[in-house]
């Protein structure tokens, strides 16, 4: 099967937050007045794209453009309201467990049991995927050594580690299960330049040696250009352009007569400013109020 991922006319809506307080809504109910209904917010709008096997596919977009919502839908953490997502031919809703076996995800927030050590966290994660602890332990040490984690950090609590180091453990956690579709949601945010390069080299190696397909969201245009074979630009939930990095650059004009860069592509197609890395926390999905 050549298609690793098919996203077909996918949309996602979230309940909006009402501007009127609950008390006033009850007052309106009791007095028979008009009740303001929260407006649904269309976080992802009719998105369609395909990713080929062994391809590294980039999704770029400003904060709030729907990148993380899209990744969550592919990860089976959100159910699309419209459209379908298939991973190597398996539907993400109807064949959820089969899809989960093929994927893993690294997100910008390295979520761990903070009191536990990298070893304890990684063995927990590996066991969830049915990997034996002995096998996972050897692989985890190897990956973390490759990513530059000090050996004595392996058994110390995660809370004692820097954010960058925690992110490396998060990357190791995803690689440990040998996913054939890896979803990287801003994986190098918070890493120093050397660590970024190590991770980027590792991503390339994973694709080449483990036959993995990778979907990458990032704010780092250099990273996108270095890694991605094709890139989709997402803005306000919609794909506004999809092409190779060079193809995208041909669509826009460079700044001050210089050849166009991906930064120019981003700015001109989204009409928004680039987000500095330290501001680029995980984009906010519109959250339900319950």
């Amino acid at each position: 099967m050549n298609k690793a991922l098919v996203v077909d006319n996918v949309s996602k809506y979230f309940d909006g937050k009402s501007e009127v307080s609950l008390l006033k809504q009850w007052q309106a109910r009791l007095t028979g007045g008009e009740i303001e209904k929260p407006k649904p917010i269309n976080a992802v709008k009719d998105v369609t794209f395909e990713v080929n096997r062994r391809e590294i596919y980039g999704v770029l977009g400003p904060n709030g453009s729907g990148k993380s919502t899209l990744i969550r839908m592919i990860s089976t953490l959100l159910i699309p309201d419209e459209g379908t997502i298939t991973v190597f031919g398996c539907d993400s809703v109807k064949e959820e467990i089969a899809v989960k076996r093929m994927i893993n995800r690294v997100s910008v927030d390295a979520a761990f049991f903070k009191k536990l050590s990298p070893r304890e966290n990684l063995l927990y994660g590996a066991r969830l995927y049915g990997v034996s602890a002995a096998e996972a332990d050897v692989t985890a040490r190897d990956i973390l050594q490759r990513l530059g984690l000090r050996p004595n950090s392996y058994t110390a609590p995660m809370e004692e580690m820097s954010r960058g180091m925690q992110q490396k453990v998060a990357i190791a956690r995803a690689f440990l299960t040998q996913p054939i579709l890896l979803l990287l949601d801003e994986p190098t945010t918070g890493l120093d330049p050397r660590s970024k390069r190590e991770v980027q080299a590792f991503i390339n190696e994973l694709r080449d040696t483990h036959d993995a397909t990778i979907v990458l969201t990032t704010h780092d245009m250099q990273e996108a250009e270095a890694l991605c074979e094709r890139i989709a630009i997402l803005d306000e939930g919609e794909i506004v352009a999809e092409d190779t990095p060079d193809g995208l650059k041909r669509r826009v004009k460079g700044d001050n007569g210089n050849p166009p860069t991906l930064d120019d592509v981003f700015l001109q197609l989204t009409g928004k400013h680039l987000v500095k890395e330290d501001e680029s926390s995980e984009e906010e999905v519109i959250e339900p109020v319950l």
Partner: protein
Amino acid sequence: MLGHLTLDNVKREVRQEFAFVARNFNLVKRYWAWELVWLCYSTANALAVSFIGAGVGVISPDSNVNTQFLITYLIIGTLVWGFMSQIFNNIAEMIAWERWEGTIEYTFMAPIRRISQMIGQMIFAVLYAMWFVMVIGTAMVLFFDIDLSNANLGGMLVILLAGSVSFAGIGVVGSILPLLYPERGAQMTHIIQAFLLLVSGVYYPTSVLPDWLQFFSQFSPATYVLEGMRTAVLPGSTRSDNLFSYILPLLVIGVVMLPLGVYLFQRAEVYAKRKGCLKRNG
């Protein structure tokens, strides 16, 4: 349920269930200071309640109370409630815990069936509750003269195990609340626990409750565990005195509640994935 029943599938299933047992023991180990505080508090609380039995004769010298009987009655209440509430807490807080740590998305993204997650959590909960109650029970033996020579120990064990399944089922239902209500769900589970404490006759016979509360007592598994344990331990009852009449309702509640809880949890998970409730941490 296991797909093809191959050795590899069974191994994977066992590893997945063990993931929760190992993780929770690691958390207990890392949060040892909190565990110690909680254990001390629970032991002091159990002793304080049991001393009420010793104090009744002093408070009301004219009352014709069998102090030893009353102390044993209260000790059974504190130990059984300690055991059951630990199981309930561990299972009901399974989601709340993941929300506090921010790991909920990773656990829900893993290719694990919810029933396997529940089984793993339940195994840990029973082991932890047994250890917890053994420590408190040891403290009780040091303070009070407890006579178990006429107790039906086998019957007690069967009742406890049957009660564990029932309480696990209620715990699974309770764990739905933090799944649906990220901010207040964990507190809501305490309301269920408080209500069970009130209606189950932990420190008194349910017959002293108002009729409308007694109505709810019959649906609480703790009612049958407590009555069964008291029948098995306290003098005046024969060794096998109708223990089955307590075990049967426990098995019925367990058989109904556990699958029902898992089913409701799965429905709630689908709802949470539609509404985007998994993301937020409470």
